[in-house]
């Protein structure tokens, strides 16, 4: 009582050894906790950051493709960083099961665009079950899981319907490469516009145009279905756009020279 009143403390029970053991114990427990929970969380965060980065990179590549298609620029070169996964090109003439993704355009009487494979520039993450594709001028993301997963469209293609003139403009952009291209790390994507074609179909009276996206292997179906819903409500990756006076189908062939 006397000591407490005078503000002095007893240090008879203070032991340097016990103090050291306690502090060492706390430090080891801390390191253990970080290794067990912190490190995996950090790795997951890193993988997520890589995917986010790739989403932005794909939008940059999409801008390149749009610049070539819609601004008459013949060549584009962009250096990008591919981390935590692989960037590859699925050429539109690739006959494998991986490339069973095509578009078809018909009207009430005839086929305007037969089944056309469009290929894609594809990023596949190595840590997360995610595929991001630059496909037909759109950036689409496919989240895989046991039941097949779902997909979403990160950035839309340049399709539009002008209601004033009843004109529907559908650009079809196909990706092509002569060699199998794959890369990881710093990658220079060199793109060249090799073919450009424009077909106009005036309808009188106006007609309903059917556009179908068919995807036998992957699941970009949901992404395209949701995009088609911006034109007309549809439960399938098929859309019927009514009252079209003129249909313009623009086809661009983009060749990837290197990754």
């Amino acid at each position: 009582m006397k000591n407490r009143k005078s503000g002095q403390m007893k240090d008879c029970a203070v032991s340097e050894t016990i103090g050291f053991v306690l502090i060492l114990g706390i430090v080891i427990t801390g390191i253990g906790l970080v290794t067990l929970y912190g490190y995996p969380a950090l790795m997951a965060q890193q993988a997520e950051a890589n995917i986010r980065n790739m989403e932005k990179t794909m939008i940059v590549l999409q801008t390149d493709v749009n610049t070539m298609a819609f601004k008459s620029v013949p060549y584009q070169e962009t250096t990008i960083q591919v981390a935590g996964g692989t960037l590859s090109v699925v050429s539109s003439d690739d006959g494998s099961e991986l490339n069973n993704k095509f578009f078809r355009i018909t009207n009430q009487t005839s086929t305007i665009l037969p089944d056309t494979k469009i290929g894609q520039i594809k990023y596949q993450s190595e840590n997360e079950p995610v595929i991001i594709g630059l496909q037909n001028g759109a950036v689409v993301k496919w989240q895989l899981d046991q039941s097949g997963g779902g997909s979403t469209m990160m950035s839309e293609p340049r399709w539009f319907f002008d209601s004033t003139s009843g004109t529907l403009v559908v650009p079809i952009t196909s990706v092509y490469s002569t060699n199998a291209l794959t890369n990881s790390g710093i990658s220079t994507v060199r793109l060249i516009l090799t073919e450009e074609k424009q077909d106009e179909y005036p309808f009188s009276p106006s007609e309903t145009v059917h556009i179908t996206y068919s995807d036998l292997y992957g699941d970009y179906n949901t992404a395209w279905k949701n995009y088609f819903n911006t034109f007309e409500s549809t439960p399938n990756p098929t859309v019927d756009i009514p009252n079209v006076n003129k249909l313009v189908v623009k086809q661009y062939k983009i060749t990837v020279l290197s990754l």
Partner: protein
Amino acid sequence: MARLNDEGQWIVLMGFVISISIFILAIIVSQSALVGQTTSESVLEFSKNDIQDLRSEIMSLKERGLVNDTNLKDDIVSIALQKQNAVIVIENRTDSVSRTEFISIHFNNGITIYNETYEENY
């Protein structure tokens, strides 16, 4: 043992506050980079020059009395579709009662929609 000296505790507290502030600032900076990119992209996408060129061409045709020339109109529409991916409708009508000439320009490239009606008394 000497009395515990707790006068330096504010240094620890300030360190804690500063580290949290830096963390929050880092989040804000990363967000603003994203916004900056989007804004610059949308500025690039805005087809101001395409619209200015189109308008200047139509006004030049009007000055020369050629705005009703179907071939010239078709050429402008085709070139705009081919080069700018834009649908264009040009209409010219005259109201003899109010002695007014109207020229309507409609431009749509899927991102930018522009409508203008030019009126001139004659």
